[in-house]
């Protein structure tokens, strides 16, 4: 038994779902979306400007100055090899952000396309795609990522690929059901009668309607992808050294927790900040679009 969402107010006609394409839709978004966007924009800016802001080369080893405490020369001290932690943190955003974003965008893209195809074309295409989705979903996702990364070898490419293989399913399901809902509406029927080709119908009439659904899930998936990447690197199964990466830096700092506590904790704060920003966007979009 599923309970329709609007059951509580049966007497009120259902208020049409908002769309981001509508004029003024962005103005109706809750404040947290903006707070989140500002936070994420800041991270993106840092990643872009890392070579300009970073005081040191993140890979430059200085054995004379190992495990230094923070001072004016090294804002966050140095690591075991005398590398500047602050500079490494800044440069790490150039690894974590792209992989986190791609690790979520690629599955969303693949899932959206496959879901739309399944929903719009139906029949055996639909069956084939959705059965594959069932199989993928039956597996414990994270464990399968470990296995895939093990099989494909360490590195950003295999991590993104593993995410894509696993995470497209949810998007395919959302989009497919949305397409099925939209497909039989009058204006799509009318477009069909007018002889528009299927692809054009998809592009013009279906995608603008389904894109909102995807947008709600995307920020959360970026968080998951970023956290998973950090976890893999922490375990020594992700981005191989010496490339700076937040999760790997936490692992590097953990042995020195007693003396250099900032070493392992600050990279975590950086991850939490990004995660919060993205979660705020996700939750805000959900409230704004479904209200």
């Amino acid at each position: 038994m599923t309970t329709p969402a609007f059951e509580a107010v049966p007497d009120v006609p259902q208020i049409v779902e908002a769309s981001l394409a509508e004029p003024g839709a962005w103005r109706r978004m809750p404040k947290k979306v903006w707070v989140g966007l500002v936070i994420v924009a800041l991270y993106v800016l840092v990643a872009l400007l890392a070579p300009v802001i970073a005081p040191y080369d993140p890979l430059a080893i200085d054995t004379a100055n190992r495990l230094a405490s923070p001072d004016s020369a090294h804002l966050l001290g140095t690591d075991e090899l005398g590398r500047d932690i602050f500079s490494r943190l800044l440069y790490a955003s150039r690894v974590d952000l792209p992989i986190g974003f791609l690790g979520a965008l690629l599955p969303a893209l693949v899932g959206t396309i496959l879901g739309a195809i399944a929903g719009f074309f139906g029949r055996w295409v639909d069956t084939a795609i959705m059965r594959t989705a069932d199989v993928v979903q039956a597996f414990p996702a994270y464990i399968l990522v470990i296995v895939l990364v093990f099989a494909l070898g360490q590195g950003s490419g295999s991590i993104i690929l593993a995410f894509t293989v696993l995470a497209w399913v949810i998007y395919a399901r959302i989009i497919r059901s949305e397409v099925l809902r939209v497909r039989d509406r009058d204006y799509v029927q009318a477009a069909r009668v007018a002889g528009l080709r299927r692809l054009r119908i998809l592009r013009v009439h279906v995608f603008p309607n389904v894109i909102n659904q995807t947008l709600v899930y995307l920020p959360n998936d970026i968080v998951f992808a970023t956290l998973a990447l950090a976890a893999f690197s922490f375990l020594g199964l992700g981005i191989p050294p010496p490339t700076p990466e937040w999760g790997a830096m936490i692992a590097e700092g953990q042995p020195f927790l007693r003396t250099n506590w900032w070493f392992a904790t600050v990279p975590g704060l950086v991850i939490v900040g990004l995660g919060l920003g993205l979660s705020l966007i996700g939750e805000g979009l959900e409230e704004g679009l479904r209200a």
Partner: protein
Amino acid sequence: MTKRLLEVEDLRITLQAGSGTITPVDGVNLALGRGEALGIAGESGSGKSLTLKSIIGLLPQGAQVEGNLRFALGDESPIPYTSTDVHGRGISIIFQEPMTALNPTMRVGDLIAEGPRIHEGLSKTAARERAVELMRQVGIPAPERRAKMWPHQLSGGLRQRVMIATALSTRPKLLLCDEPTTALDVSIQDQILGLLQEIRINLGMSIIFVSHDLAVLGELCDRLAIMYAGQIVETGPTDDVFTKPNHPYTEALMTSVPSFDATSVKLAGIEGHPPDPRSFPPGCRFSPRCRYAREDCTEADFELVATDADRSSACIHTEVFAEGGR
């Protein structure tokens, strides 16, 4: 007129919708006598169901209620009350969808026994016996056996009878009916209506029955109130309203044909949809769809005016309308 049981005065309900608020019920006045059956008719979105739920204090969270509600719990005149005063005591309600209105994880006999256990302090066994008795009273065959069943094991008609038994279990003076026959097959509909009529006469209960189906209301109700866009546009004795409607909307409702999905009606001869509660039209809210509409209809203030001793209408052109237009 008989002694009053319930009075609703200038009822206004506001809800949060997205970033704004809407007022789906906007200034409703009702009075109900003891033993009287009142029908409220209107399309979905007219506010009829919210009006009903506000009487028993079961509005969705976040709903704001303004206005005065008065109910006579004893033999005195109606006095202001809160929902806890009438829950399980003076007022009961039955819903449109008996499947969702019955707790799916509770045997139906236990559900019916809840009221007697709480309010009459009956023991488990005594309450169960009372439940079986109530089930027999609402015409459920083999009640002892059925009392042990789950809601999903019963047919739609039996479920609605269980719902009615549950409502009667607290010995209410007023039974609120929120489209209780709409989700049922036509033959079952008639049985349930017959049952409600019988209960009403035997127990001397008052009834408020909400429906979009005027034919259903005609069978059961003494008086009718027609609602449109959150306001009552016409009231009167059922027969009078049927023979000579005093509002164009009533006329449109009467000539309407129920559509197949059963929850909405197609209105014959008028275009468009009920207005969006986010932006009601100015003046008479029906005027954009009214075939008798004049220029001054969009300027008129809404007011329900007595047209007879016991009738009223909100149409400012009743005379014109009465002559058949033009």
